[in-house]
C-alpha cells in the first residue's frame, strides 16, 4: 500500500507562493494497493492533478472513498479526468444520511446552477455505496469506516493490507472542549480507526490558540489531534 497526498488543505484551496511546500489543493489522497488497485480518499481540488496523472494510465476501476460531502472534499470530482471516460468504473463510497441517498446529495452540487453538467450526464459508470457498518474488502485491502465527530454525516477510514495500516480522518474533533488526555480511549471519536496504525493522516487545521475560537464548529487543532498511541501523525 502506497499513499500519495494530492491535497491537504482544509476549507478552501490556497494557491500561491505561501503554500508551495505542501501545496494548496484541498483534500485528496491516492492509495495504491498491492494488486495495483486504486483507492482515492476524498475529492477535493487535489483530485484534478491526480486525474491528469491517471489520464494516460486509464484505470478501468477506481474506488473513491468520501469522508463527507463538505465542498472542500467534493469540489474536484467534476474535474477528475477519469469521470469523463465511459470506460471508467467509478465506485463512490460515502457516509449514509438518514435523509437523502449519497447520489442525491452529491448531485446537489454536481448539477446546474452550481455545475454545468448533471451528475447523471457524467460518462463514467458511477456506482454509489453507503459505507458498510462492518469491515469490507477492496482487492487485497480491508477497510473500516466509522462515524467521527464533525458536523454532518462524516466518517474516517482505516485501510489495512499486508500487516500495514493507514488511517484517514481529515476533518475531526476527537473531543469537544475537554483535554483529550482525560478522555478514556473507548470514549474518543475515531479511536478504533487510529489505534496502532502505521500512518495517520489527521486534521490539524488549527493551532491551539486558534482552536478555542472554532471548537465544535469545524475541526481539530494540531495538538488535540494526536492520539497518544498512534505511531505516526501527518497533519492536513
Amino acid at each position, binding site marked *: 500500500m502506497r499513499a500519495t497526498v494530492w491535497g491537504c488543505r482544509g476549507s478552501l484551496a490556497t494557491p500561491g507562493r505561501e503554500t508551495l511546500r505542501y501545496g494548496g489543493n484541498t483534500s485528496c489522497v491516492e492509495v495504491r494497493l498491492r494488486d495495483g488497485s486504486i483507492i482515492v480518499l476524498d475529492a477535493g481540488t487535489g483530485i484534478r492533478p491526480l486525474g491528469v496523472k491517471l489520464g494516460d494510465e486509464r484505470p478501468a476501476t477506481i474506488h473513491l472513498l468520501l469522508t463527507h460531502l463538505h465542498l472542500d472534499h467534493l469540489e474536484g470530482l467534476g474535474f477528475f479526468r477519469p469521470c469523463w471516460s465511459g470506460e471508467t468504473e467509478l465506485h463512490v463510497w460515502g457516509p449514509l444520511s438518514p435523509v437523502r441517498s449519497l447520489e442525491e446529495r452529491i448531485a446537489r452540487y454536481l448539477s446546474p446552477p452550481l455545475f454545468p453538467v448533471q451528475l447523471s450526464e457524467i460518462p463514467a459508470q458511477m456506482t454509489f455505496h453507503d459505507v458498510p457498518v462492518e469491515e469490507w474488502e477492496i482487492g487485497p485491502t480491508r477497510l473500516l469506516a466509522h*462515524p467521527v465527530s464533525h458536523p454532518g454525516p462524516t466518517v474516517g477510514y482505516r485501510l489495512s*493490507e499486508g500487516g500495514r495500516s493507514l488511517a484517514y480522518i481529515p476533518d475531526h474533533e476527537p473531543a469537544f472542549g475537554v483535554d483529550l488526555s482525560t478522555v478514556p480511549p473507548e470514549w474518543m471519536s475515531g479511536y478504533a480507526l487510529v489505534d496502532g*496504525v502505521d500512518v495517520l493522516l489527521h486534521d490539524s487545521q488549527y493551532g491551539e490558540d486558534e482552536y478555542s475560537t472554532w471548537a465544535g464548529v469545524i475541526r481539530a487543532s494540531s495538538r488535540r489531534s494526536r492520539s497518544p498511541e498512534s505511531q505516526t501523525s501527518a497533519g492536513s
Partner: protein
Amino acid sequence: MRVEGRRQKELILILAREFASKLATPMFIADRHGDLVFYNEPAEEVLGRSFAEVGEMPADQWASLFQPEDLQGGPIGLEAMPPGVALLERKPAHGEFRITGLDGRKRLVSVTAFPLFARSDEFLGMVAIFWEQPGVETP
C-alpha cells in the same frame, strides 16, 4: 486479515456523553444492550453515588439498583419505566416514580427517555433525563 483496531463506543454515545457532561440536568445513558454506560454529575446528586464508583452495569442490575417504585409504593420493573420503554419498545416515554438513591434517600423523579438511532434501523441506546420533584420522602 483482521483489522487490529480496538473497540470504541458508538459515536452517538460519545456525543451524548459529551453533551451530558456539560449539562446541568441529570442525564443517564445506556447502550443498545441496555447497559448503563454513563451518567453525569447532576445525576450523581439524585442517584446518590458517582458514576466512577458505580461503573458500567447491565440493565437488569441498574433497573433494580435504585429500587424503583410507582407512586403507590409498589415495585416496578424495567419495562414499566420510561428508560425501559425507550430500550425495549424503542420509543420515547415520560413518567414519574420513586427511587432510593445509593445514599439511602428516597426521591420522587420525573423521567423523560428517548431511544438513539444512528440510522432508522440502527438502534444504539437510550438517553434519560430526569428531575427530582418536590415532596421528597426520606426514610
